[in-house]
C-alpha cells in the first residue's frame, strides 16, 4: 500500500497538473488585462479640465441617461480619443506579437520591418505633394503599409523564411523610406510640413470617426482570424521543416498570418499615425505575464491597448503641455529596445 503512495508521479498526472495551471494562468491574465483595459478606458474619459465620475462616463457612453453637458464632453470630445487609443492599441499589440512569433525574433515589430515607414512615406507624400487631408491621408497610409509589406515579402521571402534576413532587409527598407520622407519634407511649404510632422509623430487624438469605424471593422474581422491562425503559428515557430512534418501548410499559413498582421497595423497607422514601440513591447509583456513561449494574441492585443491608453493619459494629462502619444511611447520604448539589443546579443539569440 505504501509502495503505491510513494510511487513518483506519472507523466499523466504531472501533465494534467501542468496544463491546468497553465490554462488557469492564461484565463486569469487575460481577464485581468481586460479589466485593466476597461478601467483605463473609463478613467481616460473621467479626467481633464472638466472632471467626471465613472458613473457619469459609463451612463453617457452607453446612452443610459441624457445630460447635454456631460454628453458633449464624453461623447463629443473624449470618447473618440479613448476609442482610438483602445482600438489602435489592440491592433498594434496583436500585429506586433504575430510578427515576432512568425519571424522568431523579438525585434521583428512592424515598426522595424519597413511597414510603418512605408505608410509614413505614402502619407507624407500625400500631404506635401498632393496636398490631401483627412481620410485621404489615411487611405494613402494604408496603401503605403500594404505596398511596403508586399515589397518586403518579395525581397526577403522568396524561398522559405529567415527571420534575421527579413529584419535586416526591413531595416534597410525603413532607412530608405525614412530618407525619402526627409527629402519630401524639405520640399514642403511650412503649413504642409507642420501637418506632415504632426502626422509623423503619431497621436491617438488625430483619428477621425470614419477612421475609427474602419479600424474597428478591421479588428472585428482580423482579431478572430488571428486567434484561429494561432494554431498554425505554434507549428511554424518550430521551423518550416517541423511545421510541414506536422501537417501545416506553411506557405499558406504564413501568408495568412502576415496578411492579418499587416492589415491590423496598416489600419492602426492610418488612423493614428506611426505610434512607435507599442507593437514591439506588447507581446513580450504579455508573454512575461502568461509564461514563456505562450504567445497569446488576445493578451498581447489587450496589453497594447493598456499601454496606449496609459501613454495617452500621460501625454495629455501628466505633461505640462499635451504631447502627441508617439512621444510618450517612444520615450518608454527606446530604453526597452536598447535593453533588448544588449541582452539578445549576449544570449546569442538575435538570430
Amino acid at each position: 500500500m505504501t509502495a503505491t503512495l510513494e510511487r513518483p508521479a506519472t507523466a499523466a498526472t504531472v501533465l494534467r497538473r501542468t496544463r491546468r495551471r497553465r490554462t488557469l494562468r492564461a484565463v486569469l491574465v487575460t481577464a485581468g488585462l481586460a479589466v485593466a483595459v476597461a478601467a483605463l478606458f473609463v478613467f481616460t474619459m473621467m479626467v481633464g479640465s472638466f472632471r467626471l465620475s465613472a458613473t457619469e462616463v459609463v451612463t453617457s457612453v452607453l446612452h443610459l441617461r441624457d445630460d447635454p453637458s456631460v454628453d458633449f464632453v464624453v461623447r463629443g470630445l473624449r470618447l473618440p480619443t479613448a476609442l482610438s487609443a483602445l482600438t489602435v492599441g489592440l491592433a498594434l499589440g496583436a500585429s506586433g506579437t504575430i510578427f515576432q512569433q512568425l519571424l522568431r525574433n523579438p525585434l521583428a515589430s512592424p515598426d522595424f520591418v519597413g511597414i510603418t515607414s512605408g505608410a509614413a512615406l505614402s502619407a507624407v507624400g500625400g500631404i506635401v505633394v498632393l496636398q490631401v487631408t483627412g481620410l485621404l491621408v489615411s487611405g494613402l497610409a494604408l496603401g503605403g503599409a500594404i505596398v511596403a509589406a508586399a515589397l518586403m515579402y518579395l525581397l526577403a521571402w522568396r524561398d522559405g523564411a529567415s527571420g534575421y534576413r527579413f529584419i535586416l532587409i526591413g531595416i534597410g527598407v525603413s532607412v530608405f523610406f525614412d530618407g525619402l520622407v526627409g527629402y519630401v519634407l524639405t520640399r514642403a511649404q511650412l503649413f504642409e510640413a507642420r501637418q506632415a510632422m504632426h502626422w509623423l509623430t503619431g497621436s491617438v487624438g488625430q483619428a477621425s470617426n470614419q477612421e475609427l469605424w474602419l479600424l474597428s471593422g478591421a479588428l472585428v474581422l482580423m482579431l478572430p482570424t488571428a486567434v484561429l491562425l494561432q494554431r498554425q503559428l505554434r507549428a511554424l515557430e518550430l521551423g518550416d521543416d517541423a511545421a510541414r512534418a506536422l501537417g501545416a501548410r506553411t506557405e499558406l499559413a504564413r501568408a495568412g498570418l502576415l496578411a492579418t498582421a499587416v492589415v491590423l497595423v496598416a489600419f492602426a497607422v492610418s488612423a493614428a499615425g506611426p505610434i512607435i514601440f507599442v507593437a514591439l513591447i506588447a507581446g513580450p509583456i504579455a508573454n512575461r505575464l502568461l509564461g514563456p513561449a505562450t504567445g497569446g494574441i488576445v493578451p498581447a492585443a489587450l496589453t497594447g491597448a493598456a499601454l496606449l491608453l496609459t501613454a495617452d493619459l500621460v501625454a495629455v494629462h501628466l505633461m505640462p503641455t499635451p504631447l502627441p502619444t508617439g512621444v510618450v511611447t517612444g520615450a518608454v520604448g527606446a530604453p526597452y529596445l536598447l535593453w533588448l539589443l544588449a541582452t539578445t546579443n549576449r544570449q546569442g539569440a538575435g538570430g
Partner: protein
Amino acid sequence: MNRLRAEALTLGYDANTVVDNLDVRVLDGKVTAIVGANACGKSTLLRGLARLLQPRAGAVYLDGKTLADLRTLDVAKVLGLLPQTPIAPDGITVADLVSRGRYPHQGWFRRWTEKDHDAVSRALDATGTADLIDRPIRELSGGQRQRVWVAMALAQDTDLLLLDEPTTYLDINHQVELLRLLRKLNAESGKTIVVVMHDLNLACRFCDHIIAMSEGAIVAEGPPTEVVTAALVEKVFGLTCLVIPDPVAGTPMVVPA
C-alpha cells in the same frame, strides 16, 4: 507490403539534382538506417520521403497513394519526421513542446482532448522526459533535448517515424541512449523507423536494415551483416578498412586500416 516507398524519385535544390531516379522501399516494422558520406543525398532522400521536398520526377507512395494525392494533415497522422535542426521557441517548456506534436490530430476548433493527453503522456513516459516536464528546453543537456524532440514526434502518434541525423550532435553515450530508445519504440509498438546517421558501427549495431548511398544513388541495401563489407566502405566512404565482428553483438564493425 511496404507502406512507404518511392519510385523513380528525383529530388534536388535549385539547379542541382541531388537524388536521381531512385527506387526505395521502407521495410514495415523495422529500423532502417540510411548511411553515406557527407552530401550523398541521404537527408535529401529522407526529406523527399516525408514530403518536405517536392519530387522533380517520380513519386513517393504512402499506403499505395502518392503523397501528392493525400492531404498533408492525413499524412501527418501516419508519417512523422524529426528534422535535423528543429527550432525551440524561446523559453518553451518540455510539456508545451511535446504537446505541439498533437497538431495533426487537432482541428480549427477542436483543441485539447483526452486522446491528446494520453498520447503526450505516453510520449513523455517512453522517452523518460516526464520529470523534465516544467523545464525550459534551453536549460536541458543535448541528450535530454533530443529525447524531448523525439517525444514530440512520438506524440504525433504515427506508425512511421523518420529521423534526420538525430545523433549527430550527441556524445557517444547519448547516441547509444537514443538508439536504444528507438529500438525500444520499435519493439514495443512495431513502429517503422528510418534514421539518417553517420556512425556506421552504431547503425550496424542498432538497425535491422541498412541503405548505403553514394552520390545520390543507393549502392547497397540489406541487413548489416550482409551489406557492410570492406569493399562497400571503400566504395561509399573512400576509406580503406577492416570489417570485424563487434565483440559484444557480433554485428559488423568498421576499423580503419
